[in-house]
């Protein structure tokens, strides 16, 4: 069941709730799974000096990001007893309130899925060459800084 071949993680624009539902639904036939852990990153309308973030525009160094994501996936699969893992990240503009990151891990017993999901999110945030440009409603911008 383990999917370890490199695959694209990038989607243009926001990740729809219906897309997430479809991903969940596809696991119905995998009746060895007992727990799914999902992380969703949502764009915040942060207020900075009177301006409000209206959307984030994401860019990436795609070739490097996909190689890095493949390496992260290999590490996570070797560390945790996972049934499967799916990762999707937005490119282009994602408005405040919309989803830009979707990490989805599944395992027989819950602990592996939960720990793997959290670790994957942390690694994506620190290791994937992706940049968010926060666009304000007054058409100015600043570059996002990850915590």
């Amino acid at each position: 069941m383990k999917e370890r071949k490199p695959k694209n993680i990038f989607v243009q624009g926001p990740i729809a709730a219906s897309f997430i539902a479809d991903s969940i639904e596809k696991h119905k036939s995998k009746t060895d799974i007992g727990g799914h852990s999902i992380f969703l990153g949502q764009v915040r309308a942060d207020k900075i000096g009177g301006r409000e973030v209206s959307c984030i525009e994401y860019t990436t160094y795609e070739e490097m990001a996909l190689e890095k994501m493949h390496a992260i996936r290999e590490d996570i699969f070797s560390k945790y007893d996972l049934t499967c893992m799916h990762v999707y990240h937005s490119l282009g503009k994602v408005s405040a309130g919309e989803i830009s990151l979707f990490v989805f891990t599944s395992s027989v017993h819950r602990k592996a899925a939960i720990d793997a999901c959290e670790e994957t999110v942390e690694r994506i945030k620190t290791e994937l060459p992706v940049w968010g440009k926060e666009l304000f409603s007054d058409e100015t911008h600043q570059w996002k800084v990850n915590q």
Partner: protein
Amino acid sequence: MPINIIIFGQLADIAGGSLALENIADTNSLVKELHILYPALATAKYAIAVDKKVVNENTRLTENSIVALLPPFSGG
């Protein structure tokens, strides 16, 4: 032969999305040259990737090297 450099995120605001520089033997020389051409880069925080791997030590460059300037990642 020129070394081609691709530039991402806020660094592209400073130096454009790509550059080609002649007579660059290694990443240390590259940094020196970039900071002369674009003084704002000298105060910017960034990493250099060669062939899609971040390099932390001085690295020899050839015409086939894929060089990229990467500001701090902010995905998610």
